[in-house]
């Protein structure tokens, strides 16, 4: 029988009060664990595991907007890049894969973003170590689509479903005439891909109304390739052919037939780039090279979001942790009140123990042991319940909001949780322990 056993027995004697105070600590710790798990999942979704590419190339502008639009599909594209630039990048030996993305439209039902891309997008990992799992067949036709799991769930679509898309965004009322067919459904990824409809890039260009006036394209190409007359000449030659064709056909519309769009007329909203893994400096040098020339920029897909998440969510997380810390502190005060109130009833008990030979430090230790057992017991209970709830809720959360929760990921705050609880136990147990320490044995035995 040691001091902790004696403390435990004393707690059992006051079962109700002990359970309630431990429960209040448990609730606080459980809340903290849940907040940390959720914020960890959000942080992970927005930073480390967001995308399996090294760089995102887009028109010069806000790097955050580029990432939000290309990766998270939360923002409209900044502007477009000439398709010829994609071809140019593909020739760079440092680039292993360059996948074009063209977007701007949304589905009529549910306003899910439409992204025109190539099959390479589905062949690459969508996040490090994670490959797409596709149910259905490959895109063959111009208007074949692959839809994300969340699109399928919310709109009730499956392979074979047909739908229309709205031009330019949810607020636009221009519905394209083309009927799109779902040919495959992606398994849930926990990323923005779940809420995206993927379209054959060629199909994206073939949608009536997506082509821009030749004069506008010409102006853009001249701006873009101002420092590269050779490429500009190639582009201008292609534009001349388009102009000649338009003059021949008298500017007819293309609703009843489709032409293959010349490269000079095509644009992409962003290019996802994978560089050589074995040479980590590639991505840095490539970024620097792209920034130097033309009007494009390359951004690390993690950095701007990391900055945003840390700047915004980091503060919210800190605020919530502070709030929960206050809750735990209040629970600690509850433990203090519970033990302190019991001290007058236990005066004789302490006197008896002292008479049996317990020293002042023994009774001091027993009371501190009680507060420690309550704090640590409550803390452990809360920690397990918190992670247990996270485990139980993880499948539901991923189904509902596509957030991948790893319930066992330990946060740095959790590593200091138990030392902090021991500190709290010492703090709240100190005064009652001192009362026990100072108990006058002779008086206590007479009481």
């Amino acid at each position, binding site marked *: *029988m040691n001091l902790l056993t004696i403390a435990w027995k004393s707690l059992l004697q006051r079962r109700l009060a002990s359970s309630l105070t431990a429960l209040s600590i448990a609730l606080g710790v459980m809340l903290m664990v849940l907040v940390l798990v959720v914020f960890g999942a959000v942080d992970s979704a927005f930073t480390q595991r967001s995308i399996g590419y090294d760089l995102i190339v887009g028109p010069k502008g806000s790097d955050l907007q580029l990432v939000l639009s290309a990766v998270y599909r939360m923002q409209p594209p900044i502007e477009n890049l000439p398709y010829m630039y994609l071809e140019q990048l593909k020739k760079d030996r440092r680039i292993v894969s360059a996948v074009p993305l063209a977007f701007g439209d949304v589905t009529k039902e549910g306003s899910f973003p439409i992204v025109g891309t190539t099959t390479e997008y589905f062949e690459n990992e969508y996040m490090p170590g994670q490959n797409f799992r596709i149910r259905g067949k490959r895109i063959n036709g111009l208007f074949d689509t692959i839809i994300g799991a969340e699109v399928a769930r919310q709109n009730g679509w499956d392979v074979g479903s047909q739908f229309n898309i709205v031009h330019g965004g949810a607020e636009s009322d221009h519905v394209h005439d083309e009927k799109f067919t779902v040919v495959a459904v992606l398994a849930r990824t926990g990323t923005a891909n779940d809420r995206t409809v993927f379209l054959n890039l060629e199909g994206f260009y073939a949608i009536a109304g997506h082509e821009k006036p030749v004069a506008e394209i010409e102006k853009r190409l001249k701006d873009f390739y101002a420092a590269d007359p050779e490429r500009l000449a190639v582009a201008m030659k292609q534009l001349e052919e388009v102009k000649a064709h338009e003059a021949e056909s008298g500017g007819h519309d293309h609703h009843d037939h489709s032409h293959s769009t010349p490269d000079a007329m095509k644009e992409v909203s962003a290019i996802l780039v994978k560089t050589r893994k074995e040479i980590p400096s590639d991505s840095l040098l490539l970024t620097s090279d792209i920034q130097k020339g033309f009007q494009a920029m390359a951004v690390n897909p993690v950095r701007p979001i990391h900055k945003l998440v840390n700047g915004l969510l980091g503060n919210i997380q800190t605020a919530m942790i502070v709030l929960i810390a206050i809750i735990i502190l209040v629970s600690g005060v509850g433990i203090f009140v519970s033990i302190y109130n019991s001290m007058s009833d236990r005066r004789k008990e302490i006197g008896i123990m002292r*008479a049996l030979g*317990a020293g002042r430090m023994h009774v001091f230790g027993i009371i501190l042991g009680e507060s420690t057992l309550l704090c640590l017991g409550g803390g452990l209970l809360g920690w397990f319940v918190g992670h247990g709830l996270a485990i139980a809720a993880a499948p539901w959360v991923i189904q509902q909001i596509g957030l991948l929760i790893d319930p066992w990921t330990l946060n740095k705050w959790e590593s200091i949780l138990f030392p902090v609880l021991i500190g709290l136990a010492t703090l709240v147990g100190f005064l009652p322990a001192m009362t026990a320490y100072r108990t006058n044995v002779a008086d206590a*035995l007479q009481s």
Partner: protein
Amino acid sequence: MHLLVNALVWRSNSRRFGGFAMFPSPESSLSVSGRCLKSWNDLMSLLLEKVRKSYVEPSGRKLPVLGIDRFEVKQGEQVALLGASGGGKTTLLNIISGILTPDAGSVVVDGRDLATMPEVVRDRYRANRIGIVFQTFNLLPAFTALENVMLGMAFSGKGADREFAKQLLERVGLGHRLNHSPSKLSVGEQQRVAVARALANKPVLLLADEPTANVDPANQQLILDLIRDTCRDHNVSLLMVTHSMDVASSFKRVERLQDFNRPELCL
């Protein structure tokens, strides 16, 4: 240095006890902190010399309680102590057990003077050398009978010996009630647990403060016999405070506190 000497004496004393044979060897010469007993030939468990104790009332007035020039209990001796209420019996027991320290004088228990010991040493010494049986039993309600006995061992520094605690409870006839909480035990059984607890650390001196006062008449003699027989069996000196002449009359040695206590000596 002081503590080291104490520790060495303590250790030498401890070595003398094997199992339940707790007589100190007559040849042993014991040093007492601050003083030295030339010999321990007279085998005293308790020796009080020139003990003075007064209380200070809230008004500031000094209230003399104990003035004892000499009082002793020999090893294995059983003494009944009679005294009127308010006569200082409880204060005397508290001083003998080291719960209180005298204003002056020495309180030698098993060769060592409690009055000069630091409190922390005195507490440990009390746990190991002195057993106490209270009038109101004072069992802790959160603990079973067995745990109450083991609780006495927990503070001795030697660790709790479950088997020995069981033996003690069996010895007092409670082998079948080991895991009962005090509230599930009769008054007589509770007092028997208290006796077992007092003997848990193999003390040399058992202090019993009116142990039969709260026990029904049928159990009084039983408890009394139990305490006296157990002390006799284990060679433990017994100082029993009692109001009852019936109880006192069964002792060979009966002392009246007022006969050897002269509080006026404090003045």
